[in-house]
């Protein structure tokens, strides 16, 4: 035990050594310092490994196909042709598949046939880092219906394209693995031609909150500490300012929850793995989860989230959809603040909240 007295006596000697009082200029960090959140190499391996089991990998495409469809529905609202389109982080080209789907337009009167969006697109370039995943479906019939080019690039965070190249950049369920999202959005903005849209969907904030929470509790109770097993995700509130910072105009950001029911947590985690969407955070624990934690997690997840009469457990996927337009001088501009002449309250026929 050190008494206060002895501690005090030794204090002056420790604190005022000659060398410690001089602070010199050491070095400047090169470039823009960047926080590495995700292990890119691990992510690449996970995607490759998942795609090599073709059968299993196709089976778990339900989420990516659904989101790609919903993303492409947003393209229906833009009445123009897109000669040159980029699919950023294409996975297994789910967007190409959605673009070749006919009758995508739900708003069209029943019985009318609408042509697939692919007819408005002359060239689609799909890029991803994983060769196995990108080329997985290259022999399927939808490839004949669209002019599709697959390109494997070493890193999604530095794109090898010239400025003013694309008429639209699409991205579905990929950019949540990007370390430096602001830099990527900047690049996308540069690659786009003026007055062209960037439309993307990514997993956001509350995705898999059930699993995140129950794994934490299981970890705490079994091992006395918490380790990150579910990767962090961007929040909806951040996306708007990120797009703004990258120079996009006329932003639209919206959120959609997709709840999938699984028989048990093992099926959920297995599907995530087959999607190539498993945890890839830096400094994550090596090796698989311990059996004890898995067992505890299953019990806690069921108790917390399973509805009494539901056959399975729910898992929430929160999708953030974003649309941003590259700046152009002929683009419609928002009016100046305070220049409105109509009261929205009168226009919409609303009243005060408390008087319903």
């Amino acid at each position, binding site marked *: 035990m050190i008494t206060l007295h002895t501690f005090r006596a030794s204090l002056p000697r420790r604190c005022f050594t000659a060398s410690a009082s001089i602070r010199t200029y050491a070095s400047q960090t090169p470039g823009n310092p960047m926080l590495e959140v995700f292990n890119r190499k691990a992510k690449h391996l996970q995607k490759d490994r998942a795609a090599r089991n073709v059968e299993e990998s196709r089976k778990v495409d339900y989420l990516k196909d659904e989101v790609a469809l919903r993303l492409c529905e947003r393209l229906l609202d833009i009445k123009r042709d897109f000669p040159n389109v980029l699919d950023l982080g294409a996975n297994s080209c789910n967007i190409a598949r959605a673009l070749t789907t006919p009758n995508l337009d739900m708003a069209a009167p029943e019985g009318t046939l609408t042509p697939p969006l692919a007819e408005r697109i002359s060239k689609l370039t799909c890029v991803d880092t994983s060769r196995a995943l990108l080329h997985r479906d290259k022999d399927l019939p939808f490839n004949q219906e669209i002019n599709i080019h697959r390109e494997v690039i070493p890193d999604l965070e530095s794109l090898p394209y010239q400025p003013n190249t694309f008429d639209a950049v699409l991205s579905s369920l990929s950019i949540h693995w990007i370390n430096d999202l602001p830099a990527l959005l900047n690049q996308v903005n540069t690659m786009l031609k003026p007055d062209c849209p960037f439309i993307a969907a990514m997993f956001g904030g509350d995705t898999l909150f059930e699993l995140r929470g129950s794994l934490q509790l299981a970890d705490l109770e079994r091992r006395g500490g918490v380790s990150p097993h579910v990767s962090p995700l961007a929040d909806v509130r951040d996306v708007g300012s990120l797009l703004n910072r990258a120079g996009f105009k006329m932003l639209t950001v919206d959120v959609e929850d997709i709840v999938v029911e699984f028989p048990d947590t*093992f099926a959920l985690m297995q599907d995530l793995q087959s999607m190539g969407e498993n945890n890839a955070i830096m400094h994550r624990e090596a090796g698989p989860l311990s059996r*004890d934690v898995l067992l*505890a997690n299953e019990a806690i997840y069921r108790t917390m989230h399973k509805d009494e009469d539901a056959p399975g457990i729910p898992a929430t996927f929160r999708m953030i959809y974003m649309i941003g337009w590259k700046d152009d001088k002929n683009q419609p501009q928002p009016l100046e603040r305070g220049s409105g002449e109509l009261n929205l309250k009168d226009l919409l026929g609303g009243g005060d909240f408390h008087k319903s």
Partner: protein
Amino acid sequence: MPTKTRPVEKFAKATAQCSVEAAAYGKCVVADYNAVHKDMCAKEFMRLKDCFLVR
């Protein structure tokens, strides 16, 4: 190898047969989930694990 079951499937099957023990353990943890600490529900967990091991 279509007939080979993955270890995780066996694991899932065995766990499904211990739903009573799992519910007891789950309830114990969730009852006070703001103050979970190590081995808070050790007794319930051992019961769950015993059940799981004999399956």
